[in-house]
């Protein structure tokens, strides 16, 4: 008998819990957002752990639609001239081609904009070049108030959205009656960002057995995988890690002394000085210039850096070889082939995906 009371109490709690959940998902206005799964390429399913989607922000059709609209809308910036897409252009694999992006009032930052794709597979959840943002949601708070980016404040953003002709309805569909605020904006943006998946390059097709590599591309891949030549794979993925990044932080020998401490400024540990997040090598054809400060304009310059331009410092990664000679001195042929291979990671289906274009 006593048990019966406990059980009914439990059931009561469960019911109230689930309705709370439902409010968040929008049941209150008689409308439930449609949860949808990420469209994961088969190769990713076969090779990688399942992507990271926080239970506090499930992917829904309405949330993604809203996030997409917000991503492309300059309404988020103080003078309504800059959207996320200004610096993260879908045609350029969601980065821009400037060394340092221009924000509101031509404000200029100190880091190269980053391409956005396959973000849900960053299992350490550390974002930006120095890893200071600890989730996609949290990252999205930052550009809106950054003075050299959107230079706005969140109260103003919320007011504009509340008084807009379309947004209140869209927020309601995605999140129910929760008042529009920064939390909902970043949730929607993050849902859209998680859908940005790039997995259909020539090399992906090669791995799926749908195409063959030229002998140059094949040799370039061998250089990439060979410990005595390029040895890129210890950090930049492989045929078995189609992310083409380890999402970890390293010092790849760009400088002897650091003007930007990178991860070190975030952790406060001098052993992390000069370490930056390994970028994915997908879509390099669209994402120049390269490195955290956009110092290299071309893939050739990057390869020359690894081959003979390495600079020693106490935190340089032990994987960097023959540092006193500037690197392993690849032959001209290996360099050209390495570039040819890197370009097989170009995914134009991603940059042209209609789901990712300006609404």
């Amino acid at each position, binding site marked *: 008998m006593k048990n019966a009371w406990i059980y009914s109490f439990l059931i009561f709690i469960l019911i109230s819990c689930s309705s709370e959940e439902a409010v968040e998902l929008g049941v209150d206005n008689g409308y439930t957002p449609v949860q949808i799964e990420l469209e994961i390429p088969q190769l990713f399913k*076969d090779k990688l752990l399942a992507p990271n989607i926080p239970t506090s922000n499930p992917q829904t059709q309405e949330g993604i639609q809203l996030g997409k609209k917000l991503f492309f809308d300059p309404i988020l910036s103080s003078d309504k001239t800059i959207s996320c897409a200004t610096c993260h252009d879908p045609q350029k694999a969601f980065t821009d081609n400037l060394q340092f992006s221009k924000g509101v009032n031509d404000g200029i930052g100190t880091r190269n904009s980053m391409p956005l794709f396959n973000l849900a597979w960053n299992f350490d959840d550390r974002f930006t070049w120095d890893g200071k943002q600890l989730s996609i949601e949290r990252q999205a708070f930052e550009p809106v108030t950054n003075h050299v980016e959107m230079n706005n404040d969140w109260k103003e953003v919320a007011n504009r959205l509340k008084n807009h002709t379309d947004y209140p309805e869209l927020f309601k569909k995605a999140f129910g009656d929760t008042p529009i605020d920064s939390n909902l904006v970043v949730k929607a943006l993050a849902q859209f960002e998680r859908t940005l998946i790039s997995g259909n390059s020539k090399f992906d097709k090669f791995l799926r057995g749908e195409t063959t590599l030229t002998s140059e591309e094949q040799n370039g891949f061998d250089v990439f995988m*060979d410990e005595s030549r390029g040895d890129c*794979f*210890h950090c930049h993925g*492989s045929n078995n890690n189609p992310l083409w990044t380890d999402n970890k932080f390293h010092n790849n020998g760009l400088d002897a002394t650091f003007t930007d401490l990178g991860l070190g400024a975030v952790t406060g540990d001098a*052993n992390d000085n000069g370490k930056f997040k390994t970028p994915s090598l997908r879509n390099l054809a669209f994402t120049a210039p390269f490195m955290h400060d956009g110092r290299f304009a071309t893939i050739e310059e990057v390869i020359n850096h690894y081959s003979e331009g390495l600079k020693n410092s106490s935190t340089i990664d*032990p994987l960097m070889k023959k540092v006193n000679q500037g690197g392993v001195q690849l032959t001209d042929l290996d360099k050209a082939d390495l570039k040819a291979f890197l370009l097989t990671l170009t995914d134009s289906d991603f940059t042209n995906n209609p789901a990712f274009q300006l609404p």
Partner: protein
Amino acid sequence: MIKKLVYILMLAVTIWSCSSDSDETLQNKKITINFIHEWDGTLVTKDDFNDIKFKNENGDSLSIEKYRYVLSDIKLVDPSGFETPLKDYLFIDLGEEQNLSYSLEELILDRTYTLRFTFGFTDEKNQDGVYLDLNTASFNVSPGLGGGYHYMQFDGKFKTETTTTPTGFNYHVIRAVDNTDPNNLVFQDTSFTVNLADIWLKNTTETINVKVNIAEWFKNPNTWKLDELHQMLMPNFDAQVLMNGNGKSVFSL
């Protein structure tokens, strides 16, 4: 299969007899295995990383920046030879403090056991691309060396009398492969079995502390000279055979 049946029968008999003389009872035990890393008796944690403060047998000074490895086929073996599998494989990362301690519950007899595991993967288990967590951690071996996985990645910097500026080393352990003829790779399975004997498991919670002496990689039986062997060791068949020799004394109780 037959062996297993016989064992279960024996077990049943034992349990039966146990109730009378209560010597060896079958009990659900929570077993915790700790991997305690050390340098010749001095504890090593991630806080000791990045500092050129260790000295190996040859007198080379070195630091640790990455130390991660795979143990597979982890099991308990009792005096009759019966095996209780504990874990298919474990990916241990000292720098990221991943799997330094592993716990599980197992229904086993109160007995003395040997903890047995393979360092790395035997050829049979060293299948290319099949372990998703290891792919995600980029622990793979390139197709040019036959694919599969690293057994260990141990990176750091060293200094010697001749190498006066700190220089990177990559003590990467894999299945030895001779790639002189890329179209005809010659392999040698350099994974090895570790047996840690005489572990009394008699309580409902038991802890097994496995010592991992990193210094052993450089001394026993082969005195390792980092000046000669520090990088590009993956395609170096002979270096892999030396590593296999030295690794066998790394683990102890």
